[in-house]
């Protein structure tokens, strides 16, 4: 078993109290993969999209992310305890999915560890998928997808799959992952579909997966995600509630605000 261990320089916790995050590779993960992040956030879009990728592509569980700053819990699957944040792999696609809300105090160290690990594995591209809350979501038939990028050169790759988010705030793990990708010279994209703020949104997850397919060629049939939408929303209710609590602590609502400076 290969263990990759990172200690971030600063975690946002008590003075001098460094939290550690461990990326555990239970099977060998080859270099040069495309990494898709599905962390709990607005509308649980990332979790729903990444979980769908894992199940529809029959991805193999190859590792996990462990940290003492995460809640003391395991997820039982088939009676066996698993880490709530796990890494899955199929060919050159790796996916990180979290089955628990990420505490606001763990966000810095988690983002740091993910980007350092992706950098050490020479990841081709780090794509974070998520939601962008819009007030009139009920009236939107087909959610639009927006993108934020580490480099302008990636705009061409987007094509018509997503519209570039020109101005605004991003708050939460994806904001830090994108910034750390930029700092570490790792190519990164964040895809955000219009979604509900605090209701699980499978339609937004389907929209973001369609954009992902256009960018990377990763195909996943989203029809099941849409057909089982109501059951998925009910099943995701509790993690959504906990995620909302963490989003409030992170001042997630600042994403609605207008930044004062241009350029």
């Amino acid at each position, binding site marked *: 078993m290969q263990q990759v261990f990172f200690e971030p320089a600063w975690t946002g916790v008590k003075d001098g109290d460094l939290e550690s995050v461990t990326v555990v590779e239970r099977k060998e993960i080859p270099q040069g993969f495309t990494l898709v992040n599905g962390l709990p956030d607005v509308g649980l879009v990332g979790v729903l999209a990444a979980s769908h990728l894992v199940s529809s592509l029959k991805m193999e569980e190859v590792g996990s992310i462990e940290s003492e700053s995460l809640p003391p819990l395991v997820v039982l699957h088939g009676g066996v305890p698993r880490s709530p944040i796990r890494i899955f792999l199929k060919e050159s696609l790796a996916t990180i999915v979290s089955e628990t809300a990420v505490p606001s105090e763990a966000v810095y160290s988690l983002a740091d560890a993910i980007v350092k690990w992706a950098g050490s594995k020479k990841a081709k591209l780090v794509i974070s998928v998520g939601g962008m809350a819009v007030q009139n979501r009920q009236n939107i038939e087909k959610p639009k997808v927006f993108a934020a990028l580490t480099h302008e050169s990636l705009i061409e790759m987007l094509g018509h799959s997503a519209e570039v988010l020109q101005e605004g705030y991003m708050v939460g793990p994806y904001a830090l992952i994108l910034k750390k990708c930029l700092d570490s010279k790792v190519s990164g994209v964040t895809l955000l579909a219009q979604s509900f703020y605090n209701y699980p949104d499978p339609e937004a997850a389907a929209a973001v997966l369609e954009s992902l397919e256009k960018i990377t060629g990763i195909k996943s049939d989203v029809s099941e995600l849409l057909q089982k939408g*109501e059951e998925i929303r009910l099943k995701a209710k509790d993690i959504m509630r906990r995620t909302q609590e963490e989003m409030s602590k992170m001042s997630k609502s600042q994403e609605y605000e207008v930044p004062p400076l241009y350029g």
Partner: protein
Amino acid sequence: MPRPRRRRASGIVDDSVRHTRKLRHEAFRSGWDELARSIEPLSNITVGTEEITITLDLPLVDHKQVRVRVHGENTVEVYAKTKRTVTFDDLGIRHRSGEFTCYHTLMDLPEPVDGAKAIYNMKRGILEIRLPKLR
């Protein structure tokens, strides 16, 4: 000196029922009340200048099965029967045996509203209730 207004017996009973339900709600914060066979829905309250808007996520509910009741000026109760009985087994949970037939919630509002003028509609499984504020 004005005489204190006498309360109707039905109002006192309503208060008592609401209080009991609230206590039970607090005891079952997970939102799955196996005894009442009800699910606490996700909800959101937005305070506007003229009205308060409540939304609730009600998957597996037909709009005809929604009942909205405003208690006094500050509490809204929503009951909605699900299209089918939902069990923990349906959700992949085998070690619990609860089954659920409805959503139910009591919501305290931050400002008084005119309950008689409440309007509501449902779209994409989201119930939206609009309540004009009392002036």
